């Protein structure tokens, strides 16, 4: 049995004295290699605990760069590393915590063409990504390479955790979800919101499941852990089906072509809401922020309708604007127009919902009222008119 470096006995002593770990367990951790795909809200806490526990080799794979809006939950990144690749930023933090761990920094996106090559060197894969196509790709790759996939996901106040392709009969992601969800039902953290402690909780649990697999302490029962931060109780564990014989990836006759276009399979690329909100639209249907500014300053009577959800309206709003959330407006557009004849400007965060709202209003109005919505929404207002107006 190979000895550990002398200082490791001190560093890892608190976990080495646990029954189930001991000296052999620490050696297993040291010999283990894991790949963490995504160094964001889930990846950061997962990486932190895997590195602290003394995993020998960790691949950090992420092509994104650190932004200020990440720091609320992606706890390895700092104000100093804004603009750096997340993989690099995370590696810096980990190195200062445990310089003994071998870190592979990969700043490329995992795609069908490179996934097997990138992930082949590792014993266990962690899915800490934020989109559906990559989840299918990672699952298929884990099956192809014969490695367990520790999968975490989080949104708003909720999280989910599963280990796929593990044990004698464990299902893969495709066994559970043979068909991807419709594109329009999938939102991002930027659209839907995410609470930092929630990604932290799931990311920590991914590290835990990974370590249990390495140590042989995992019972191999297929399960889905559901975390609901505001629920009572906050955790529930769901018994899952075993491997599906008809599964295209891990079933009796696998037939996933290596050239699969995962983005198309999942309904196409995510819409770029910022660009879509900036489209110029039909003449006289959309107004630039400058036009709105001039209208406000001219002192003429006008009506500004803000169609964001009330919580977002509460964060920041244009003076004199009225909040009528899109859903309420669409239920009864007529009620939203005052009896007067003043022009109506519809705003939202980026200029997408406002187009829907303005169209609904126009279709209901009799007479001469002008209804326009604001190109680029409040974000454009902040960027072009009033830099002191918050962007969130």
């Amino acid at each position, binding site marked *: 049995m190979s000895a550990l470096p002398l200082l490791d006995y001190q560093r890892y002593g608190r976990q080495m004295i646990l029954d189930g770990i001991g000296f052999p367990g620490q050696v297993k951790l040291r010999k283990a290699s894991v790949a963490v795909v*995504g160094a*964001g*809200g*889930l*990846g950061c806490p997962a990486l932190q605990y895997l590195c602290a526990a003394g995993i020998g080799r960790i691949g950090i794979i992420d092509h994104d760069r650190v932004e200020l809006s990440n720091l609320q939950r992606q706890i390895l990144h700092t104000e100093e590393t804004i603009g750096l690749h997340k993989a690099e930023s995370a590696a810096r933090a980990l190195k200062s915590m445990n310089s003994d761990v071998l870190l592979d920094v990969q700043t490329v996106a995992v795609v069908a063409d490179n996934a097997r090559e990138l992930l082949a060197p590792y014993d266990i894969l962690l899915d*800490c*990504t*934020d*989109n*559906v196509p990559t*989840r299918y790709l990672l699952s298929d790759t884990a099956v192809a390479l014969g490695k367990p996939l520790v999968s*975490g*996901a*989080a*949104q*708003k106040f*909720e*999280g*989910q955790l599963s280990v796929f392709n593990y044990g004698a009969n464990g299902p893969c992601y495709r066994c*559970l*979800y*043979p*068909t*991807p*969800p*419709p594109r329009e*039902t*999938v*939102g*991002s*953290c930027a659209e*839907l919101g*995410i609470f930092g402690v929630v*990604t932290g909780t799931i990311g920590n649990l991914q590290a835990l499941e990974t370590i249990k697999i390495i140590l042989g302490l995992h019972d191999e029962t297929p399960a*889905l852990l*559901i975390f*609901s931060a505001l*629920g009572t109780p906050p955790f*529930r*564990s*769901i*018994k*899952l*089906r075993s491997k599906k014989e008809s599964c295209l990836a891990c079933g009796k006759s696998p037939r996933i072509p290596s050239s699969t276009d995962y983005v198309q399979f999942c309904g196409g690329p995510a819409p770029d809401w910022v660009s879509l909100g900036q489209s110029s639209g039909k003449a006289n249907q959309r107004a630039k922020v400058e036009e709105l500014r001039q209208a406000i300053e001219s002192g003429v009577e006008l009506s500004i309708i803000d169609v964001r959800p009330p919580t977002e309206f509460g964060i920041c709003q244009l003076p004199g604007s009225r909040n009528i959330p899109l859903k309420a407006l669409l239920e009864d557009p007529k009620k939203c127009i005052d009896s007067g004849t003043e022009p109506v400007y519809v705003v939202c965060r980026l200029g997408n919902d406002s187009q829907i709202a303005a169209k609904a209003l126009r279709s209901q109005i009799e007479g001469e009222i002008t209804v326009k919505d604001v190109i680029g929404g409040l974000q454009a207002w902040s960027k072009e008119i009033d830099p002191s107006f918050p962007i969130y």
Partner: protein
Amino acid sequence: MSQLSLKVEFGGGIELLFSKKHTITVELPALVPTDDSTDDQSLMEDTAKEKKPANLAYLVLYLRDRLLTERAELFVENGTVRPGILVLVNDTDWQLEGEGDYELKDKDNIVFISTLHGG
């Protein structure tokens, strides 16, 4: 004829389709029309309609017809829940319980949860 009282829960965003309610109680007769109609009249005890034991497939249609407040296709597709929604019966994936054919029992806990993708 006996009634079933079911605890139905929504999570992962599905609650947004049901007036933002996370938990509701659904009362169903143990026997429901074989033509899957969900109106009050059809659920009356003395209706002449042919009956079958209430199952999960029927519950999905009942929720769609009676309690859904958003567009139906966000919940149901091709007569069953759309892809991306997990259905749990008493903390077990419905795939282990016969899916839509599972016959509901009094006090069953049924969960509809959307799979999450963020991180």
